[in-house]
C-alpha cells in the first residue's frame, strides 16, 4: 500500500475563490493509499514547503501530490522540497487545479468536483511513478552568435571575455547592423560610429571570436550543450587571408553605378565593395549579380590591380560544421516599407502617401544617412530630389505602427525618441529651418528620455502637432502634407520640402525561416518569443537558445545591449558546469520486445532514436533494436504512441500510468 501525501494550495485566492479547497482535502484524504491530505494558503512559500517536508518525514510518505498551479510554474520548487525531505524528486507530481480549473471555471460546485478528479488521477499516477536519476550530458563550451549588430557584438564580446570560444555569423559583408548606419544617438547625441567601431574592431581582434561574415546558418541539429551548426560561407570572391584591405580594387572597378544599400540607395558603390569605410572585416566582396566579369566574362580589372593576388573568381560557397553548446540569436529587425503590399507580406503599404513614389518622402533610416558625417552627403541634410537644403521638414510618427488596418497594432517603441532626435539634428544643421512632427502620443519612458523630448520641443523649437496625416502629394517641388490637429480641432496643410516617416520596426524578412531551422517559436509578427514575458525574457522555450536585441521586439540600443549582456550571462551560467543535468523524463526501449521496425525513428521529432545492434558473446548479430539517446530525447511520447509492440515508454507517462489515471475518474 502506498503512502501518498496530498497538498492543496489556495494560491492566495486564485484557487480558493472558485474551488472549495478544504473539501478537496477532506475527500482526497479518504482515497486509498493517501496517508495525509492538507490545504495551505501558499504551498510554494517557505512555510508551505516546510509543511511538505515535515509531512514526508512524519508520515513516511513514498509519494507526493501538490495540487496547485501548472508544473511549468512550480514543479521544480516542489521536487526540490521533496528531495530535501529525502524523497526521490520524481515521486512528486503536480495536479494543476489553477490553470486547468479555478482560472477557467466560475461555478464553485463544478470546479470543486473537477479539482477532486484532477487530484484523484494524479494520485493514481504517482502510485506508479518510478524513482528516477537525473541524466547528465556533456557541454560543448563554445557559443554561436547569429547576427553581428550591436546585440550580437555585445553578446559575443561578453562571452569571449569570459574565456569561451564564440562563433559569430553575420549575413552581410561587415558586422555593425543598423547601428552602423545611424548618425548620432539618443538620448546623449553621441556619434554612433564613434561608440560602435571600437567594439567592431574588438570583435575582429578577439582571440576567442571566430568571425564569419557574408555567411548564413544552413542547418542546426542537436540540443542544449551539444548543437551542430552548419554555416554557409558565401563565396566572397576575395581571399580573406591574402587581402590587405588597401582598396585599390574598389577604386579601379569600372562598374561604379550600383545603388548603395548601406546609404539607403542615396549614393552608389562599385561591384567590388565594402559596405562602408569602417567595415569589419575590411575585406571587400564581389557583388556577382552586378559584376561585369560575372555577367559577361569580360573584365578582370580587380584581379589585375590586386597586389597580393587576393581576387578569386572561382571561389565557391563553403559549408562548415561548428559544434557549439549554446546559441544567441541576434538577427535584428527590418523597417516597414510604405510601398504596395508584396504578395508574401501581410502589410498593406500607404497608398495615401503615394506608395513610396514621392522622392522627397524618406524614412528615418535614410534621414540618418543624410545626417551622418560619413553618409553620402557628408552630413549635409540635402533632399534627394534636387539636392536642395530643405527649409520645412515634416516628420510623421507611427507610420505602420499602431495601425491595425495596415497590419501592425504594436508600438515600435523607438520612433518617438529618434524623431525628437531628428528634429534636433536638423535644427543643429539648418538653423533657419522649421521641423514639424505629426504624432499620436509622445512615448518617452527611459532614463533621460522625456527630458530629451522636451528639449526638442522647448529649446530646438520643433512644432509638435498631435494628429495623423491623411495624405501626401507632390505639388511642384513641394510635398503637401494634409493632416489634422486634434487638439485644436482643425485641418492642417503644410507644404514641406522634405517628409520623414518614422516607419514601423518589423521582424526581419525570413525571420520565420531562421526560427524554423533553430526550432524556436515566434509571434504573429515573426518576432522571436521569449520563454516567459516577465521572468525569462532572454531565454527561448527551446533549451540552450537565447535572444538578444530587436529580433525579439522593437528595442533601442540601451535595451538591446542590456539584453545582449543578459543572454551572454545565461550562456556563461550554462558553461559554468561541465555536465548538464537533464530531467530524466525520456523514453526507454524494452530491448527484449522491440522488433526493430524503427517506426519510432521515423516519427521522433528530435532525431533521438538510433539503431542498436545486439550481438551474442561471439559477436554474431542477434537483432537490431531501437535505442533512444537520452541526451536528445525531448520526452514528447510520440514514439510510445506509435510503437506497435508497446516496447518504448516514456518515464513518468507509461501506458500503465495513463490507464490508471483514466480508471481513477
Amino acid at each position, binding site marked *: 500500500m502506498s503512502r501518498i501525501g496530498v497538498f492543496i494550495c489556495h494560491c492566495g485566492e486564485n484557487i480558493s475563490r472558485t474551488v472549495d479547497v478544504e473539501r478537496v482535502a477532506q475527500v482526497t484524504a479518504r482515497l486509498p493509499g493517501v496517508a495525509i491530505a492538507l490545504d495551505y494558503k501558499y504551498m510554494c512559500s517557505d512555510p508551505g514547503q516546510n509543511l511538505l517536508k515535515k509531512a514526508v518525514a512524519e508520515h513516511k510518505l513514498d509519494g507526493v501530490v501538490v495540487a496547485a498551479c501548472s508544473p511549468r510554474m512550480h514543479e521544480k520548487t516542489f521536487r526540490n522540497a521533496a528531495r530535501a525531505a529525502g524523497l526521490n524528486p520524481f515521486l512528486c507530481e503536480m495536479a494543476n487545479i489553477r490553470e486547468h480549473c479555478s482560472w477557467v471555471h466560475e461555478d464553485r460546485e463544478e470546479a470543486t468536483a473537477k479539482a477532486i478528479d484532477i487530484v484523484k488521477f494524479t494520485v493514481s499516477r504517482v502510485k506508479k511513478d518510478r524513482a528516477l536519476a537525473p541524466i547528465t550530458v556533456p557541454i560543448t563550451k563554445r557559443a554561436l552568435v547569429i547576427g553581428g549588430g550591436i546585440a550580437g557584438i555585445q553578446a559575443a564580446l561578453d562571452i569571449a571575455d569570459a574565456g569561451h570560444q564564440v562563433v559569430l555569423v553575420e549575413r552581410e559583408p561587415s558586422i555593425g547592423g543598423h547601428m552602423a548606419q545611424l548618425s548620432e544617438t539618443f538620448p546623449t547625441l553621441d556619434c554612433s560610429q564613434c561608440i560602435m567601431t571600437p567594439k567592431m574592431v574588438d570583435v575582429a581582434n578577439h582571440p576567442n571570436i571566430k568571425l564569419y561574415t557574408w555567411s548564413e546558418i544552413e542547418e542546426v541539429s542537436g540540443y542544449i550543450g551539444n548543437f551542430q551548426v552548419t554555416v554557409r560561407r558565401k563565396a566572397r570572391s576575395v581571399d580573406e587571408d591574402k587581402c590587405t584591405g588597401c582598396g585599390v580594387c574598389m577604386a579601379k572597378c569600372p562598374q561604379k553605378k550600383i545603388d548603395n544599400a548601406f546609404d539607403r540607395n542615396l549614393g552608389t558603390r562599385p561591384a567590388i565593395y565594402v559596405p562602408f569605410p569602417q567595415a569589419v572585416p575590411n575585406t571587400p566582396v564581389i557583388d556577382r549579380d552586378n559584376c561585369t566579369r560575372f555577367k559577361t566574362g569580360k573584365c578582370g580589372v580587380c584581379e589585375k590591380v590586386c597586389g597580393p593576388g587576393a581576387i578569386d573568381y572561382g571561389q565557391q560557397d563553403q559549408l562548415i560544421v561548428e559544434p557549439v553548446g549554446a546559441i544567441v540569436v541576434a538577427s535584428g529587425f527590418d523597417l516597414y516599407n510604405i510601398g*504596395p503590399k508584396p504578395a508574401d507580406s501581410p502589410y498593406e503599404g*500607404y*497608398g*495615401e502617401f*503615394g*506608395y513610396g513614389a514621392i522622392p522627397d518622402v524618406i524614412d528615418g533610416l535614410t534621414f540618418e544617412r543624410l545626417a551622418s558625417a560619413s553618409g553620402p552627403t557628408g552630413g549635409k541634410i540635402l533632399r534627394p530630389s534636387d539636392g536642395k537644403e530643405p527649409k520645412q521638414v515634416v516628420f510623421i510618427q507611427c507610420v505602420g505602427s499602431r495601425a491595425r*488596418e495596415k497590419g501592425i497594432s504594436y508600438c515600435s517603441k523607438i520612433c518617438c525618441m529618434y524623431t525628437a532626435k531628428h528634429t534636433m539634428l536638423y535644427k543643429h544643421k539648418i538653423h533657419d529651418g522649421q521641423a514639424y512632427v505629426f504624432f499620436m502620443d509622445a512615448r518617452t519612458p527611459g532614463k533621460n528620455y522625456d527630458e530629451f523630448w522636451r528639449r526638442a520641443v522647448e529649446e530646438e523649437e520643433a512644432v509638435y502637432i498631435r494628429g495623423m496625416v491623411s*495624405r501626401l*502629394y*507632390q*505639388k511642384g517641388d513641394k510635398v*503637401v502634407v494634409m493632416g489634422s490637429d486634434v487638439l485644436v480641432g482643425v485641418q492642417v496643410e503644410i507644404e514641406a520640402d522634405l517628409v520623414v516617416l518614422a516607419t514601423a520596426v518589423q521582424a526581419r524578412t525570413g525571420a520565420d525561416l531562421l526560427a524554423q531551422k533553430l526550432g524556436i517559436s515566434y509571434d504573429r509578427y515573426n518576432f522571436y518569443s521569449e520563454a516567459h514575458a516577465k521572468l525569462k525574457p532572454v531565454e527561448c522555450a527551446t533549451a540552450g537558445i537565447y535572444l538578444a536585441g530587436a529580433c525579439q521586439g522593437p528595442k533601442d540600443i540601451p535595451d538591446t545591449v542590456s539584453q545582449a549582456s543578459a543572454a551572454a550571462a545565461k550562456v556563461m551560467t550554462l558553461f559554468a558546469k561541465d555536465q548538464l543535468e537533464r530531467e530524466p523524463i525520456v523514453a526507454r526501449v524494452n530491448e527484449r520486445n522491440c522488433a526493430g521496425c524503427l517506426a519510432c525513428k521515423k516519427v521522433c521529432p528530435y532525431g533521438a532514436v538510433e539503431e542498436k545492434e545486439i550481438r551474442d558473446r561471439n559477436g554474431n548479430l542477434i537483432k537490431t533494436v531501437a535505442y533512444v539517446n537520452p541526451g536528445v530525447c525531448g520526452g514528447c511520447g510520440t514514439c510510445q504512441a506509435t510503437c506497435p509492440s508497446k516496447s518504448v515508454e516514456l518515464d513518468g507517462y507509461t501506458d500503465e500510468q495513463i490507464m490508471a489515471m483514466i480508471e481513477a475518474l
Partner: protein
Amino acid sequence: MSPNRKFALSYSYYPGCSLHASAKEYDVSTKGVFNALRIGLKEVPDWFCCGATPAHNVDELLSLALCAKNLSLAGKVEGDLAVACAACFSRLKTTQHRLKENDIKRKQVETAIDGPVPLGKKVKHLLEILAKDFGLDKLEGAVQKPLTGLKIACYYGCLLTRPPEVPELDDCEAPTIMENVIKAVGGEPVAWSHRLECCGANFTLSRPGVILKLSNEILASAKDAGADCIMVACPLCHGNLDIRQEEIEQATGRRYGMPVFYITQLVGLACGVSPLRLGLESMIVSPAALLREKNLL
C-alpha cells in the same frame, strides 16, 4: 424577350434618384453605352431612394432598411445589380457589409422590411462592369473613335473606393481602375493629386462655402496637372464640379472652363454612341469646343 437571352452579360439596374433628375445624362449615357456594348440592363421595378448621405446620419436602422428593401426588390431581377451613382453604390454595399457581420442588425432589418435581405446579390459599380466583367481588352476592341489627345483628370471622389473593406473595387488609396478604362478607350489620364479628395458632397445646400473651397482645390489641381476635362462616376461630385463651377470661378477669380464628364459619356463617345444619346447638352460647362478641337464631335 428577357435581356438574359439576348446578351452574354446582363444586369439588374438601380439608377438611383439623381439619375432620374439632376443627373439624367448619366442615366441616358449609361443606357447608351450598355446598348452599344451589348450588355443587358433591366431596371429594378419600383426602386426608391437609397437614403443617400442624409439617412445614415439620422438613423442607422432606417438607412439600412431603405437599402435592404431596394436590394430585396433587386433580388427579383436576374443578374448582378449595376449601380451608377457612387453614393448609392456605397450605401448598398455598406448595408450588405453591415448585415453580413451583424446578425442582430440583420434580424431587425428583416423585421422592418418584412422579408429576407439578399446579402449574396452582387452589387457592382458601372466601372467594375466595364473594366472587369466586360473587360478592358474587349472595351478596347469596341472603340470606334479613340479619345486621342484628350487629357482627362479621373476623379474618384471619396466614396468610390472607401472605406477599404466595403466597395472591394480597387486599392482604396491608390486606385487605377478609372485610368485603365480611359486608356482602353484611347484617352490620356493625367497624374494629379486630388483624385480621391472629397468635393464637399452633401454640403451643397447647407454649407456652400465648404463646397467652394474643396471643389476649387480639385478643379485647380486638375487644371495645374494639365487636364482638359474631369471625369466622374458620381452625380454628387458632378453637381459640385460642373453646376457650381461658375460660382467657384467667380469666388476665386480663376477661370477653369473645365467640362466635367460622366465616365459613360466619354466611353460612349469613344464607342461610337451618338452624342445625342449621351446627354452632352445638359452639361453646364459645355464640352462642345473641347470635343471639336480634339475631333471628337
